[in-house]
């Protein structure tokens, strides 16, 4: 366990992961549940236990849609999306950690894709 990374993640998320009562509502309501290897409730639990290495290397980091459903619906106000965001930032802010580079973009475009999608993806996938 990397203590510095763990402390950084908790400070960056601003979330008290110990408030979680393990009801799983965050994962139940997550629109990306099927696509995720680790689900929102697992992010919260694994950060609480300091088990962050599997999360830092998982593609689940890039499946969160920032829809805030888990933030809105958590009965304990834990705000799991903020934990996912902090772990993702810990991964992409490392040298070479960006999930998307500008030269990959042209192949993803079509005539109707709104600019909004590109700027949002860039904000989410890069440092």
């Amino acid at each position, binding site marked *: 366990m990397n203590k510095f990374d763990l402390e950084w993640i908790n*400070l*960056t*998320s*601003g979330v008290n992961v110990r408030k979680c009562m393990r009801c799983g509502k965050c994962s139940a309501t997550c*629109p*990306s549940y*099927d*696509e995720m290897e680790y689900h929102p409730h697992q992010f919260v639990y694994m950060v609480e236990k300091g088990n962050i290495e599997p999360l830092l290397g998982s593609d689940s980091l*890039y*499946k969160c*849609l*920032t*829809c*805030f*459903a888990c*933030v*809105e619906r958590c009965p304990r106000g834990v*705000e799991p*999306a*903020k934990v996912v*965001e*902090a772990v993702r*930032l810990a991964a992409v802010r490392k040298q070479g950690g960006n999930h*998307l580079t500008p030269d990959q973009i042209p192949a*993803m475009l*079509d005539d*109707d*894709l*709104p*600019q*909004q*999608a*590109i*700027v*949002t*993806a*860039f*904000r*989410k996938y890069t440092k």
Partner: protein
Amino acid sequence: MQTFTYYPGCTLRTKAKDLDAYARASAEALGIALIEPENWQCCGGAYSTATNEAGSKLSAVRTLMAAKDSEGLVTVCSACHNVIKQTNYDISRNEAMANKVRQYLGLEEAYRGETKVLHYLELLRDVVGFDNLAAKVTNPFKGKKIAAYYGCLLLRPSKALAMDDPENPRIMEDFIRAIGGTPVIYAQRNECCGGYIAMEDKAQAAKRSGAVMSSAKDMGADMIITACPLCLYNLRKNSGSDMPVYYFTELLAEALGLKEESNE
């Protein structure tokens, strides 16, 4: 005539020009002047919730400051609205963040969230009034069953967005009634369309947007309306459904008899 600052955002200048044109023409007809600030910047598309993230809030703060002395800042795109309202909410409650932003931008005084931010739908509800809007409708959507699609960004997180009940909203349904249509309530109206995942994972976007469209169709909708260019893209292009998808401002302009002239 009441005057508001108006922030179109990047997509309303490019792929969603009609969302913008219908909004402007309708506002004018309803007695609202929308003034666009000079040299505005893109909002960034997604709000960063990280507590140490000041850089990504700067463009939203610049926009908010440009509207400080007006009656309010009006946005149409759901993403711009979400980013700008969350920035405003967080900065008003976080002195350290406000001071960090002040240092970055070289401000004499810190910006502390003084600007009032309104989505165009809130402008219709709270400034124009849906009753007044209904009285100005010349071309009502009589007999049309219209599904309102909120998606995620208009309503959540509700503490910051404070527009409507996040689980049982009614602002878009009230809008539909005001333009003479019949609102259709369906389960997926405030669930995500897949958003920007459409760039990386078309299958996931298809699954999410398909679920929204079939949920609305199952409840008898003839058409679906949205405020968000990315929702419109996913629902039209990735859902696999042929049910028509429109911006709410297009229906507004049509109901007010302005559709032809706003297309010119």
